[in-house]
């Protein structure tokens, strides 16, 4: 029984059942339930990944597409889906009191929703999972139960609600013009959307999904929320949730809007994101805010990469996205006890030498120092931009290079503070073991990525070849072969 729907359904089931364990004598079950289900989901997805031969679709409820909802299973979807339970497991909030159980429920709901977003082949279903992820994120953003966290979560809620309404309008516009919601069916009708109204619909979807993808005009919530909540939640939102929102945009771009205008719009907003994010990070005086703004800049690079046409763009995008997932999650974990001004970090390396060393490793990879994977990811984006050759792309190339220089400036500012002599013997607190352990695992992953560069490249090529082929998608879903009912 390796049906990938279980990877979405099991965490949901766990979230529904978890509140029951708040009652006497069941604490041990509550502690085990979430991690066990996430591990099961990860195993299931991994088994599907290893046994993968060709893309296939699942007709949920047994209703043939395009009438029913479909899940589409290909390497791109599986890669992002697999990242969800693994990252949630790594960033699992422990504890067994009432508030902790609620937070775990929300984490499971977030994991289920994000896995669903990776697999869904239906525009409205994508929106439902996105909405579930958004509501779970509000709860998680407020979970540290401090005044600033409530304010930040409320602002997040308002911006995100605006995004949801805009997305819904965009979906309504698409449905009005085409009469269908299935992505494969929409792919066959995409010329109906090749007009200004179609572009407007894409812009609406982009703005809506962009709220979680930290897209340029709708990312004002980012620094506030990440600064006010627990750093595990920040890592989950910045590292994981943003990537799945990007994946949704990419699927829509590839299948429904294969027009140049849509790519240009993505490129423009991505470039503005890089510029605004890096400049704001340079201004920031506090480590978490700096990382938050820097994450906006990094996601700008991801969007720029995905705006490149063809296989090269998809490979570059996936590489940058996965690299950012690993690095930004780890950096947030390491910044857990380093809240407050950057200057207060003096001497942190003496208190926590391993933590500081890991921070330096991740920062260097983020900057793009060879032979770390960050270098390859940035290289792919830059060479793609240089080859694509129009004015906009060259401008984006320049902005990314400028962004890297600024990034180097502020990351080195943190690193020099870490290794400076402590002032008046006030040393920042050492890292807690679980965070150090989790970021150590991520560091191993990063180093493994640097060593296994060749097989990774091969894998990415096959992944991108099938993901960019719209015909394969349409044939698999609507052609009737490859459907399991």
């Amino acid at each position: 029984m390796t049906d990938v729907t279980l990877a979405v359904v099991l965490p949901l089931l766990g979230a529904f059942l978890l509140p029951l364990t708040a009652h006497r004598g069941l604490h041990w079950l509550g502690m085990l339930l979430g991690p066990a289900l996430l591990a099961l989901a990860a195993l299931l997805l991994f088994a599907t990944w290893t046994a993968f031969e060709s893309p296939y679709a699942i007709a949920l409820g047994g209703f043939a597409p395009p009438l029913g909802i479909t899940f589409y299973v290909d390497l791109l979807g599986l890669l992002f889906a697999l990242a969800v339970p693994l990252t949630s497991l790594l960033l699992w909030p422990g504890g067994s009191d009432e508030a902790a159980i609620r937070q775990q429920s929300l984490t499971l709901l977030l994991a289920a929703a994000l896995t669903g977003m990776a697999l869904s082949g239906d525009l409205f279903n994508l929106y439902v999972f996105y909405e579930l992820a958004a509501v779970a994120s509000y709860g998680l953003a407020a979970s540290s139960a401090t005044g600033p966290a409530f304010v930040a979560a409320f602002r997040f809620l308002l911006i995100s609600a605006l995004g949801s309404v805009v997305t819904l309008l965009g979906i309504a516009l698409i449905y009005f013009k085409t009469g269908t919601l299935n992505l494969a069916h929409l792919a066959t009708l995409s010329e109906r959307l090749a007009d200004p109204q179609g572009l407007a619909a894409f812009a609406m979807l982009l703005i809506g999904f962009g709220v979680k993808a930290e897209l340029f005009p709708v990312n004002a919530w980012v620094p506030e929320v990440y600064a006010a909540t627990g750093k595990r939640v920040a890592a989950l939102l910045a590292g994981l949730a943003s990537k799945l929102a990007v994946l949704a945009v990419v699927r829509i771009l590839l299948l429904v809007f294969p027009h140049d205008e849509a790519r240009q719009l993505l490129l423009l907003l991505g470039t503005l994101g890089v510029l605004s994010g890096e400049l704001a990070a340079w201004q920031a005086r506090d480590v978490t805010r700096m990382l938050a703004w820097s994450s906006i800049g990094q996601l700008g690079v991801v969007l720029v990469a995905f705006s490149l046409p063809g296989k090269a763009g998809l490979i570059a995008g996936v590489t940058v996205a996965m690299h950012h997932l690993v690095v930004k999650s780890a950096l947030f974990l390491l910044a857990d006890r380093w809240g407050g001004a950057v200057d207060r970090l003096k001497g942190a390396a003496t208190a926590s030498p391993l933590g500081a060393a890991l921070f330096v490793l991740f920062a260097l990879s983020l900057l793009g120092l060879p032979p770390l994977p960050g270098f390859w990811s940035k290289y792919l984006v830059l060479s793609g931009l240089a080859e694509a050759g129009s004015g906009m792309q060259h401008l984006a190339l320049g902005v990314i290079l400028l962004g890297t220089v600024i990034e180097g400036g502020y990351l080195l500012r943190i690193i020099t503070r870490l290794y400076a002599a402590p002032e008046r013997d006030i040393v920042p607190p050492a890292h807690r073991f679980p965070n150090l352990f989790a970021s150590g695992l991520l560091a191993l992953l990063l180093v493994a990525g640097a060593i296994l560069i060749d097989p990774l490249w091969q894998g990415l090529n096959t992944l991108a070849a099938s993901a960019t082929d719209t015909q394969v998608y349409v044939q698999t879903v609507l052609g009737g072969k490859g459907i399991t009912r």
Partner: protein
Amino acid sequence: MRNIATLLLLGGLSFLLLVITGGLLFGNPPMLIGQGIQQAAPTEVGAANIVTAVVLGYRGLDTLGELSILFAAATAGGLVLGSTRGRSGRPGGFILRTGVDLLFPLMLVAGLYVVMHGHLTPGGGFQGGVILAAAFFLPLLARPQESLDHTWLSVIEALAGSAFIALGLAALFEGRAFLTPLFDHGVLGALVSSGSLPLLYLAVGLKVGAELASLLVRLSADDEGAS
């Protein structure tokens, strides 16, 4: 200054939306999916109410998603409001108490009716669940010192949600896709028809009812605690 900027943004946004909708051809939009479902639903699902055939059949996963969204919102609300405090307040007058006593059984029946007939007539689990929640909340307005048992509410909520998923998983274990309707369609329009759809709606109704009731109780308790 900020207000003017907001006003400008809203003005620009509504202008854009007007231009977009102005360019749309109203009258006969393409109805590819709509017509397909209208033709296929009576034989494929067997629910007299086609809306239910869509909500629980064709788009059953979306309904599970909506159910989870409501659950996520209630959980987040619980996280923000904290654990429940005791309720206080004077009992309501004679008219309120008698009225509530009279209304309670009627609302219970109405709620269950709307839930159970969701596959035949307009209504269903979400609508019926809200009526059920109101039915259990009304007595608390009349007698504020009493309270609903939270343990029971959370047990109903958890089991009803799991029942929805279990019905979906049952199809999976029979070798069909998740959430495939089980059992025979039966006679179109009969109370026992359209396979497992009524069971799904019962699960939705109980979950929504329990969730909303506990949220209402929590909100009212906090209100009085503050004043």
